[in-house]
């Protein structure tokens, strides 16, 4: 389905304004879009992990959610949603729920890559019909900007300081999308908040693929990245233009890259304006920038290979033409 922006603009907002996210936060936009990606005859049940987006949308007695939403804890958004989905199946079967429902679980990178990894893996493996969206801002932002396994190498956080002995975070980020591909679920994709069409399409696909789906979305946090309040979307775009965060999807195991930059920008274009990397621009830490570039290139090449493989497989499977 190609996203029809005009039609979308007429859909009711399901995340009310007035929530307490920082101005310029990119994640609420992602949620607003996601809540519109159901058909008119479908309702949504959402679950969300503890983290910025939960905390800012549900300060009692207020709730920004106009669809049902449940927050239980930090690490169990997927398991909680799986229970609601199971309830839906049995209550529909028993005739107690008549409407059509879709299930959307969400969590930040901390709640997804780290503490909620097991819960997510279990829910995906069990085959619940639900989409899990990780809004990845590359750190534990709600607790004051600590490193997560999604934080890029070299980034400074409040648990990976750049000092005379340490150059910021010492490890490369975890490739969570690849971990989810390994679950052999119907749909896995990576998207970014700056590309609305691509993002909307992927949310729609994920919600309607008939099984478990996972979507990893880069959603910059200007507080944690130390960029301007109005620069979140731009830095999401740069992450894609540098191939640090490629947009791709994996349907039934087949890779497809959804966007290929005409000329790949150097990684420095993405990191140079971010305060969390500022200590990298000296002779002592230059090797970290080089490593980031090398790792980005290595991952991109591997992605190209996987896409080529999928194309070949598709060719081989197609009936020979006369």
């Amino acid at each position, binding site marked *: 389905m190609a996203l029809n922006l005009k039609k979308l603009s007429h859909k009711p907002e399901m995340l009310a304004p007035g929530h307490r996210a920082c101005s310029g936060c990119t994640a609420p936009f992602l949620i607003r879009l996601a809540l519109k990606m159901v058909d008119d005859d479908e309702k949504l049940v959402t679950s969300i992990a503890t983290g910025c987006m939960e905390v800012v949308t549900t300060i*009692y007695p207020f709730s920004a959610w106009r669809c049902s939403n449940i927050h*239980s804890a930090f690490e169990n958004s997927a398991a*909680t949603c799986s*229970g609601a989905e199971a309830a839906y199946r*049995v209550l529909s079967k028993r005739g107690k*729920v008549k409407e059509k429902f879709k299930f959307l679980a969400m969590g930040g990178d901390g709640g997804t890559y780290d503490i909620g990894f097991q819960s997510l893996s*279990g829910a995906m*493996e*069990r085959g619940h019909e639900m989409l899990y969206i990780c809004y990845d801002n590359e750190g534990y932002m709600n607790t004051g900007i600590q490193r997560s396994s999604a934080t890029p190498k070299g980034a400074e956080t409040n648990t990976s300081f750049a000092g005379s002995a340490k150059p910021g975070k010492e490890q490369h980020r975890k490739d969570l999308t690849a971990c989810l591909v390994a679950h052999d679920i119907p749909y896995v994709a990576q998207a970014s908040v700056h590309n609305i069409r691509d993002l909307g399409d992927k949310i729609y696909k994920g919600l309607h693929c008939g099984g478990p789906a996972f979507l990893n979305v880069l959603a910059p946090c200007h507080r944690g990245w130390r960029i301007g309040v109005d620069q979140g979307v731009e830095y999401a775009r740069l992450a894609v233009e540098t191939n640090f965060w490629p947009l791709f999807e994996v349907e039934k195991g087949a890779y497809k890259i959804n966007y290929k930059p005409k000329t790949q920008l150097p990684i420095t274009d993405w990191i140079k304006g971010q305060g969390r990397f500022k200590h990298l621009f000296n002779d002592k830490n230059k090797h970290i920038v080089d490593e980031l570039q090398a790792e980005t290139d290595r991952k991109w090449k591997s992605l190209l290979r996987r896409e080529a493989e999928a194309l070949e497989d598709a060719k081989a499977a197609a009936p020979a033409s006369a």
Partner: protein
Amino acid sequence: MSTTVANQKASAGKVAAQEVLGLTGNEAAAEALKQVNPDVAAVFPITPQTELMHKFAEYVANGAVDTELINVESEHSAMSATVGASAAGARAVTATSANGLALMWEIVAIASSLRLPIVMPVVNRAISGPLNIHCDHSDTMGCRDLGWIQLYSEDSQEAYDNMIQAFRIAENKSVMLPVMVTFDGFIISHTMERVEIISDDKIVRNFVGEYQPENYLLNAQHPVTYGPLDLPDWLFEHKRQEIQGFLNAPEVIKQVGREYGEISGRSYDLLEKYRMDDAEVAVVALGSTAGTAKAAVEELRAEGVKAGLVKIRCFRPFPGKEICAALAKCKAVSVMDRCISFGLEGGPVFNEIRGAAYGAGLKVPMVSHIYGIGGRDINVTQIRGVFEELKKLASGGKIEAVESYVGLRE
């Protein structure tokens, strides 16, 4: 107090036909679950609870129930999925023991705070460590303040009966609290006993009634937000409402216990007073030890000793007044705890009763006997030993140690 569960009149006043079966505690609890046919069950193995969910999974596979089974990857997810299902509007259950309960701890507290009427059998086992798979009450006693109603069972029969009543108690609109039904690991869970089962599943289903959720995620007309951020300006008020659920619960538990008596011939109260009318020396116990204590009481009575037992069935809400009233005429009392409260003199049940005794003006000499830790046996002779100590106290002896241990090598 409103009792909103439907169909309760259906079989009132008539004891239903019973089938006598040889069942372990796990099988008896699974049988109750089968008869109730809940909407959703999350399952994860842990000794000694494992066979309960084996049995139930078999019922699912054979079509005896059409419950949606969720084979979660951990107890943390078991309770999380149960919370999700219950909030969605389903009657949801899970079961566990010891370390499983410890792993789900965080969500156990969340379940009650969200006022979700989940029912969970907990087969008592010692909390690690070191690792031990046998019975004590460190698991359920450890979470006594997490906002769950706790019903302890003396034998397989009570495990079955408590399981059925638990749904009615949890789902009562003036209660709306999750219920733990506990029974002792191996001693009850794995021991074949004579159990009377209500023959007709329909009678059980009528008694339990349809679950009618009020606010639930799958309500298409009225979407809800569950589990918001609850800051200092509101959390206290919400906890107060939870307290109200506990204040309302005793009457509901008693009422359900009476009504259950009408269909089964076995009625239930918050506690059981066994030969307490004229008892001068008494022990307080819960779980399977109450059965052992009854045998000791019988032997002593035959010898002319005025011995009695107070068995606590409902530990949360805590029936402090009722317990003190039952002990009012005693000359010496021992509270037997299958659990240690480290750094505190006496076990948890002992301390709660001693606290209640102060309020009730009950001045009877009271001691704490800790026993059965990690599955250590407790027998009639040992309980008779406890009564021997009480006899000395009753005739003016001094309390040498408030806390002492039964069956311990020292």
